[in-house]
Structures are given as C-alpha cells and as structure tokens.
C-alpha cells in the first residue's frame, strides 16, 4: 500500500500541476508554482526514477530532476514544432504530464514492486535531519529576512540621480483618415506646465493653454473636424518655466499616411 502511494506521488503531482495550469488564471501564485514544477522539476524527476541506477543519492537525483527537465522541454519543443503542434499551454500541460506519468511508470516497471520497495528503503532508511538548535533556527530566519529585504530594496524604484532627466513625449494619433488628436504624455521626473497648439496645413486650429502634467499623465487635444484626407496636422508643445515659454516638442503627421496599429502584421 505504501509502495503504491509512493509510486503515485509524481503522476498525481504532475496531473495536479497540469490541471492548475489549464484552470487557474495566468500569474496566480498557485499557477506559477505549478508551472515551475511541471516545466522544470517533475519530468526530469520522473526520468531519474525511470533510468538512474539504484543507490544514487539526493544531489544526483536533484541534478537529474532539474537538468533532465530542461533537456526534455528543449527537445520536446523541437519535436512538437517539427510535427506542427503549436507550443501553447494547452499543449505543454498534457505533454509534460504524460512525460512524467510515463517516466514514473517506467520506473515502477523497471524495478518491480518489491525491488522498488527495497530500493526506497535502502535510499531513505536512516536518513534524518539532525535536530536544529534555536541559534541555528534564528540564524536561518535572520538570513531569510535579510535576503527578502535585499530583494525588496533591489526591486524598489528609487529617486533618480540629480543629473537625470525624464522625457515628455508628443505625437499625433490618427483615428481613421479624417480624425486625429495631439497627445502629450509625461515621462518626466517632475510635474511641469505645458502649452500645446495644433495646426492643420499650417493654420492653428486648437490650443490647450497652460496645463499641468504629472509623471505618467497624458493630455489629449482633439483636432476639430472637418479634416480632409491627406491634411498635414502639426503639434507644438511648449514648456512653461517661471513665466518663460520654450518650444519643447514638435511633430507632424499627414493624415492617412501612417498605418493604424490594428493593421500591423509583423514580419
């Protein structure tokens, strides 16, 4: 009974991970854990059980679990690609579950029930963790806290050095052949005041006098209709600093000349 429970651990884990990948939403913690286990650990672990000679120890099994998983996924991807099967989650999940189940089954068949039981006993019997003393537990806990703190600090955006400058972008977005808007978006490092004017064929048709843009914000000025196809729309963005007005950005667009994003096809 205990033997069969052990033999089922890998297949059941793989099936659970496969189901989690197919059911759970992308990026959820459980799916991330399932994805890492199913792609980087379980297929190799199953292969290790299937082929490694008895008596190999934990580092060898860990090495084969990780290394053979990467190997199987890399080679499996080529095999799937060659036969024209798309590489997507609905394919990866069952393929990796099948690989794990087949590896586990081979391991079971190879050893035979009784031999496997003896093999497991010889590998695990007497293996025990020495008692962890309070000082050791404290040191390990402190280490984990320090590493978490280091990663948190490392991934926290900080204020930029004094010499750094951000950038506020200006462009004209065409909406079909006869509609357009001028857009200013701040990627600057501080809030600033701007003035935006829009021209059509050299004639000013719209303006946004003195508006504030904080980092990450954008300001949109629609070009008033009617617009003819082929009209040349221009936009000028002025930065206002302490009463001074300085031309900061300038763009032009001939309506109908720039393809829309939805029409892009890729190489």
């Amino acid at each position, binding site marked *: 009974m205990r033997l069969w429970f052990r033999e089922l651990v890998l297949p059941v884990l793989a099936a659970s991970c496969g189901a989690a990948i197919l059911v759970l939403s992308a990026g959820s913690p459980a799916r991330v854990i399932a994805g890492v286990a199913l792609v980087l650990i379980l297929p190799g672990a199953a292969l290790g059980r299937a082929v490694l000679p008895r008596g190999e120890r934990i*580092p060898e099994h860990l*090495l084969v679990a990780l290394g053979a998983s990467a190997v199987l996924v890399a080679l499996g991807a080529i095999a799937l690609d060659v036969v024209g099967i798309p590489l997507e989650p609905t394919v990866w999940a069952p393929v990796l579950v099948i690989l794990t189940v087949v590896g586990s089954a081979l391991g079971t068949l190879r050893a035979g029930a009784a031999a496997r039981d003896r093999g497991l006993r010889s590998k695990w019997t007497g293996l025990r963790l020495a008692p962890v003393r309070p000082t050791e537990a404290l040191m390990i806990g402190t280490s984990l806290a320090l590493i978490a703190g280091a*990663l948190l600090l490392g991934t926290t955006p900080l204020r930029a050095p004094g010499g750094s400058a951000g950038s506020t972008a200006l*462009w004209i977005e065409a909406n079909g052949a006869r509609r357009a808007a001028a857009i200013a978006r701040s990627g600057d*490092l501080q809030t600033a005041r701007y003035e935006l004017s829009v021209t059509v064929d050299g004639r000013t048709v719209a303006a946004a006098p003195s508006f504030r843009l904080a980092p990450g914000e954008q300001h949109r000025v629609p070009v008033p209709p009617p617009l003819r196809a082929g009209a040349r729309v221009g936009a000028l963005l002025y930065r206002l600093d302490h009463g001074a007005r300085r031309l900061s950005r300038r763009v032009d667009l001939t309506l109908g000349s720039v393809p829309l994003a939805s029409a892009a096809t890729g190489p």
Partner: protein
Amino acid sequence: MLTTTASSPVAEVSAERVAGGDRRLSLGRLPALALASASGLALVSVADALSRSGRPHAELLFWLGLLVIFVPIVDRLASTAPRRGERVALLLLLGVALYLVKVLRDPFAFTTADEPLHQYNVLQILHSHALFGSNPILHVTPLYPGLESVTAALSSASGVSTFAAGLVVIGVARVILTLTLFLLYETVTGSGRLAGLATALYAANPHYLFFSASFSYESLALPLALLAAFAVVRARPPSGAALRGWGIVAVAAILAVVVTHHITSYGLVALLLAVCLVPQSWWHARPWRPWVFAATAVAATGAWLLFVASRTVGYLSPVITNAIAETFQTAAGESATRGLFSSGTGQGQVAPAWEHLVGIGSALIIVAALPLGLLVLWRLYRDQPLVVVLGCASVAYVGTLPLRLVPAAWETAARASEFLFVGVALVVALAAFEALDRLWMWAPSLSHVAAWAAAGVLLVGGVISTSTSADRLAQPYRVSTAGADVDPPGVAVARWAREVLGPGRPMAAYDADARLLMVYGREYAFTASNFDIKSALETPMLHRWQLDFLRHDGIRYVVVDALRASANTSAGYFFPRHPIGPHDRFPAAAVTKFERAGAQRIYDNGNIVVDDLKGVSDAAVVP
C-alpha cells in the same frame, strides 16, 4: 584507482569517498554561513541602491558584500569537517547568492547586450507558438532555441512575464551548474573536499558573476554540457544499470546542448574526443573510452549545423578569422594592443590602480598555482582521462591570457574562460591543498589568512578583468517620482511604437534603442551593428544609396536618438546619471538629416524622435 601518499592533502579527504555514506543530514556551519551570505547580499543590494540613486561609496559596499559571501564559504569548504550534504548545501548557497548579485544589478529588465535578443526570441515563440523565427540583430539565435523554448514553456505554463521566466530558468541553470561541477569533480577525483573547493573556485572565473548569469543561450548550454560530461563519466562499465541509466541522461543532454548553443556544443565535442584520445597507462587492459558518446555528439552537432543552422558558419567564421589575423598583427607590432581592465564596450573609463593590481594579482595566482597543481594532478590522477583533459584546459587558459591584449581576440579569449576554468578550478584547488596544508604545519593561522586573501583576490580579480565600475552596479532604470514610477525614454518610445504603429514594423535604431523596440515594442528593429544602418544613422547627410538600402529592407521608420549612449548596449538603456553635455550628443546634422530630406517627425520625446521616411523623395537626398 586513486593513489595517494600518506602526507598528501588529498589522502586525508579521500577517506570521505563517494561510496561513503553518511546518513545524517547535519546542518554543520550552514546556518552561520547562510547568515554571512545573506549579509553579503544585503550589502550588495545597498550598494546597488546607492548606485541607482547616484550616491557615493557604492563600490566599497559591493566588494565587501562579494567577499562576505565568498570567502567564509571557501574557508569552510577547504576544511575536512563538513559532510557531503553540507558541502553541497554550501555550494548551492554560494551559487544562488552570486546569481542574486546579478539579479539585483538588473532587477527590472534584461539589460546586457544579448539578453533582450533572446527575450525577443521568447516573445516570438509565445506569439507564433512555433520555433525558428527570425531575429533582425543576431540571426543565428533562433536556430538554437533550447533556452528560449524552456523559457517560453515556463512563461506560458505559469503565466509570468518572459523576464520573470528567464530569471527562473537561468537560476535553475545556476543550480545545475553548481551540482554538476561538484559531482563531476567528486566522481573523477574521489574527494568531496577537493570537489567542493574546486566548485567554489570556479566562481572566480571572470564571467561567472555576470555573463554566465545572463539570459543567454550559453548560460543554459554550459551547465547542460557539464551534465552530459558527468553522465558520460558515470555511464562507464562494469555496471550495466549505470551504463544504461546515465547513458540515457548523457545522450539526452548532448542533444539538448546541440540545440541550445553552437560554441558549447563544439566544446563538448572537443572534450569528449579529447577524453577518448588521451593516452592511458599500459596497465589498463581495456581502457575505457566514451567513443559512443563522442560519436553521438559529433553526429548531432554536424547534423544540426548542416541541416538546421548552416548560417552559424557565416556568423562565427569572421569572429575567429579576425581574432587570428589580429593576433598575428598585434604580435608583429602592426596593430595596437587593447587596454586591460575595461569592458568590451569601451566606454573610455580608466580603472583605478588598485583594480589593476588585484586583476593582475589574480592572474598571477593562477599562473603560479598551475605548476604545483599539475604536479599533484600527474601524481594522483594521471590515469583519469577527464582529469588529464582538465589539466590541459588549465594550461590552455593561461595561453588565452595574452590574447586579452588583442582587440579582436579578447572577447573570444574571455568567453573561452568559462569552459577552460573548469580545469583551472580543479588544478588550483589541488595546488591550494598541497600548499596550504604544508603551510598549516608551519604556521596554522597564516595558512588561513593566506587562503582568505588568495580566494578574495581570485574572485575580485576575475570580476575586475571583465567589467567596469558602471557594469557591476545597478543603474537607474525604473525611477520613482512623485506621481508614478517612470521607465527610461527608450522604453517609452518602444511602447508607443507598439501601441500606435503596431508590432512587427521594420525600423532602424541605435543598438540599445533597437533592443528596447524589439522587447517592449515587438518591432523588427535593425540596428547600427549593421554597417549600412550605422552609416545611415551617423552621416550628416542622407545619401541615395542609404535610402535605397533602408527601402530595400522595408524600413519606413527611423528612431533617431540624439544621445551617444544609445549606441552603447551597456549604458544605453538607463537614465543618464550626469547632466547631458555637448560631447554626449551626436552631431545635430546627423540627427536632423532625415527631416531635412522630407521625413515627417511623428513622435518626439526630446532626445528621441521617430521619423517617417514615406515623404522622403529621391531628389532630396545626396546622389
């Protein structure tokens, strides 16, 4: 069979043979050393934070952090006290801690030269659900899809970003590398102590800290190649079960290396052939030769090169022939030598004098240790073909050191260190035991100090020899403002291009901008590493032939960056840390020439503009 003398340092550790079986998982000094490594990592994180925010003293904390991680673990591994489990745990701790140093340097995005190119390949796979797409900058990379397919599988299975998936895959590769090095050394030498120290010393390889931890195909291929080598060694007769089991692992790993990285597959072929061809002592009635595995590697590598990746020849041959030609020219005094202690990108930074001293000191330690280590190797392990090959590799490493003075050969030499250092680490570890144990009998405390100093110099010298100060520390990529977190202008352009123009547009841009366009814009970006693109971006006037070239490649949009840093794949991704001066900009004539020829400026964020070439007429360009 291992033969040792009673006084040999290896003799005492050979008692701790592979066959020996301790059944108790003792933590030993692991908790204390984990605390030391975590403290070192915290110091590095503070150093990176200081660097990102433009404050001083970052370098000092960085070096201190590295030494706090490395030296205590090396000291412990050099002693006879740890059991096998503790050695393995310490090595994994060291490998992962040093990997996190690289992660802390680039915590928001892949920002070394090749990383975005591989990330683009992953995005291509996720988009098309197929392999073997195209890469406009590094054409051969899609032909070796091992790393990208694993990363794409993880990204699509777990739903995390390609950046996060890449970090996990390379982290796993680091664990594989650490385990496989230890097990390989342990198997061929029979000593866990020697294997532990040699594996730790491998971290002093100049490319270990950053390049080997980058999201690049070699970072996965090398661990898999070492796994293949280890499996081949373990697949030797007389055990049929071992032969079958490890043989299957070896063949699978060989095939995976072949589809992951060209140079590594050639290196694996060379290693296996060398092991087959090493002369063995006459008393071996049936010397073991892994011909089957060598033949498999040769056949698989040859077939892949012939039928799938024939373009690799055109990619690699200029690199190799230029390196050889310039080596002869430099030796003959016809070419200038390269200045040492600068990164390949050559940002004109001069390293301080202490860095020169430590860098040269680390090379001298290796050169001085090799004769002693090779002597011990010959005495103890000359009947182990793989150890003999590793000894030869260590000698070859010394041979590559002068090549670092040759501009066209230095990168090849530096990249070779990743492979050759597998031998160097073993030979230096042998020498260290021989020397330090003798010193220990004479002056025990001095032997500890000497070991610590040598280990520190080796690690720091290795890092210094391949990176500048700016390369080692984090730079401002995502910065905090009052309202929101802001990414660099190059990222903003790329996101705008994807949003407004749509993905897949052929574009021209300087190197750093092109990589950002590929990853964040999913655009098909040609860059200045192509001579014609470089010319089209840099000349003060737009010539007819340049326009014809751009049109021939379907390039309608040119991303023109006024800052010279955009041509630098080390510095071009980040917010500048100093006020921009005139010398930091390209000449205004070069920047505005497309508009003077009739192009429309359709996007402007100050230093970067996007020009639409549709309106450029032939009459407006220089004939």
